[in-house]
């Protein structure tokens, strides 16, 4: 803590002459301290993930003798292969991609429509509408479980992926509406007026002006919705009864036994479950940072 508070003080150039070229500043001890701290934090954050990676490639006997922290004595792929085959992983992967993808898409579209009405259209009682929307996010999912179960059973959507898609579209778009409504609330009026003067109707204003300008924010929402839906467990567990409908996190829970746990196979399954979101994140990493900075500048 003290190093952290001292660091900015040390970074202020006191008696030294200003360096000639800015981009070739000499590293002072304080910089090294900050770098070391950043590395320590990085390792701390990555630690659980590293544990998963280490244990995924260990045989159960190796785990039993060496414990969770030791490096594997030899690479062991049976855990990964077993899990892959036991749950038919490609099928689960496709289910997850399909549900998360559709949810992300639907939720963003609905959020935009809602937020356009609330943020730019400024309908009456919008604060209360937003509060109402937020309820969907604030209620614990356990409380929603039974009402949703009965509703979906009545309409015959129990044990279909559509149940998951509809539920999460609603939950995610509730959050999206809340966020976008406040973004659109500060949307420059001049732009809207200019568009109206040019003869654009509301529909055209929305799709030709508002959406393109807020694209970075929308991409961030899309990515978050995808990852959040991907990681959902409780509701998919309840609604996806048949194995061929299940998503990756539900498939991982298959390994949870009554009294025993198989640490190495469980790690392997966790690794397989995390990899797709990681890949997704790396692909869209630039969009994410761009979207966040776009929001910050505005």
């Amino acid at each position, binding site marked *: 803590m003290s190093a952290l508070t001292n660091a900015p003080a040390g970074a202020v150039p006191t008696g030294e002459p200003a360096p000639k070229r800015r981009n070739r500043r000499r590293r002072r001890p304080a910089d090294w301290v900050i770098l070391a701290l950043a590395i320590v934090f990085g390792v701390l954050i990555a630690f659980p993930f590293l544990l998963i990676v280490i244990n995924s490639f260990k045989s*159960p006997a190796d785990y*039993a*003798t060496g414990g969770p922290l030791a490096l594997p004595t030899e690479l062991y792929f049976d855990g990964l292969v077993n899990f892959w085959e036991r749950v038919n992983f490609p099928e689960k992967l496709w289910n997850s991609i399909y549900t998360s993808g559709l949810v992300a898409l639907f939720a963003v579209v609905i959020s935009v429509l809602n937020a356009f009405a609330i943020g730019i259209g400024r309908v009456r009682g919008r604060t209360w509408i937003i509060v109402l929307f937020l309820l969907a996010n604030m209620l614990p999912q356990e409380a929603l479980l039974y009402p949703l179960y009965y509703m979906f059973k009545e309409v*015959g*959507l129990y044990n279909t992926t559509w*149940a998951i898609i509809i539920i999460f579209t609603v939950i995610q778009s509730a959050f999206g509406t809340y966020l976008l409504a406040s973004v659109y609330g500060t949307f420059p009026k001049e732009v809207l007026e200019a568009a109206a003067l040019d003869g654009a109707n509301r529909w055209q204003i929305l799709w030709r002006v508002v959406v393109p300008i807020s694209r970075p924010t929308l991409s961030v929402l899309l990515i978050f919705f995808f990852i959040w839906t991907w990681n959902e467990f409780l509701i998919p567990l309840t609604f996806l009864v048949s*194995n061929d409908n299940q998503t990756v996190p539900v498939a991982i829970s298959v*390994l949870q036994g009554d009294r025993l746990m198989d640490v190495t196979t469980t790690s392997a399954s966790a690794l397989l479950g995390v990899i797709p979101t990681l890949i997704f994140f790396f692909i869209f990493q630039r969009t994410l940072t761009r979207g966040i900075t776009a929001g910050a500048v505005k």
Partner: protein
Amino acid sequence: MHKRRATLAAAVAAVALVATGCSGAGGDEGDDNTLTLWHFEGENSAMGIAWDRAIEIFEEETGATVEFEAKGFEQIRSTASQVLNSDEAPDILEYAKGNGTAGLLASQGLLTDITEAVEEHGWDDKLAPALQTTARYNEDGVMGSGAWYGVPNYGEYVTVYYNKDAFAAQGLEVPTTYEEFEAVLDSFVDAGITPLAQAGQEYPLGQLFYQLALMEADRQWVNDYQLYEGEVDFHDEAFTTAAETLVEYVDKGYLSQNASGLKAEDAGVSFINGSAPIFVSGSWWYGRFLDEATSFEWGIFEFPGSELNLGSAGNMWVVPVNAGNPELAYEFIDITLRPEIQALLGNSGGLPVAADIADITDEKSQELIEGFNAINERDGLAFYPDWPTPTFYDTLVAELQQLINKTKSPDEVLTSLEEEYESYAADFR
């Protein structure tokens, strides 16, 4: 006009959605010749192997096809009440035994009363009395009496695992009395070894506590405690001795005080890697030890000085009320109880409930099954300490941790346990 057309389009889309959903759900409906079966045992576990064979025999003999889905324990436990209440219910599934699980579902009317099938096939003759306890539930969902709702296939019991090499190194024999057992523990402590693998954060510590209490108990005491047949006094000799003995174990160094922060997995691993020579725990470890504890010789012995041991029937087959083909389900249960399947279960490292010991060819398995049969012959299965109330497991874990951490005295711990127990069990007496 525009608006109206949009609403209409939305309505059409919604109807289409529902329709496709319906046909999706309808497609899963089994016909007369399919048995939908769920269980949560690993593919390579004894049960997994034996039931795979049972499925083959079933398909050969009945001509029906089995639609098997592998599930997780947690998955079935947390979603059963919803699934079984819908059209998606399987014809037969493996479900956890006990008041809070199978008992609850039975009292909610979600499980089929299979008493007739049990009598017709003579399954009750194959199962020892204590094994039947968890298969029968009364209208309140309390086990031990009433109609049959399930059929167990395998059993489990708590025994003492010991490291033969470590015993030989200290020149020790397998103890046959409790005094000898303590003497063995003393010798290890003298040699600088903490003898008992323990885990206070999960079930092992509670099981040792209950085992110590059982030394002073009889069958009626167990029935009072587990089946609410009579008053339970937590300050009686059995419980008091058990609590005081646990504290003594810590003081004498039989178990490490650090164990209060460990999980069952840690305790098991400390036995496998040879750092703890004795582990009082269940038969569910047996298969794993066979595979993984290969760097030394090990064996089991019965906890000395006790007529009663922890143990019970395992999880069991239940037939949902919404099952489409209950008759096929009974056929399947009958096959799983055949000597052939039971022997396969035993030879694969499991603990069959109805096996002939002569059919067991694997020497290691014989040792385990003989131990189980010996307990059943004297009607010695006393179930588990956390069964009486739905929240007793957490209470027991928390209180016993405080006991071995010495933040509470044995007397205080027993009083807390009694309060928790009475608040639930009093309604059933």
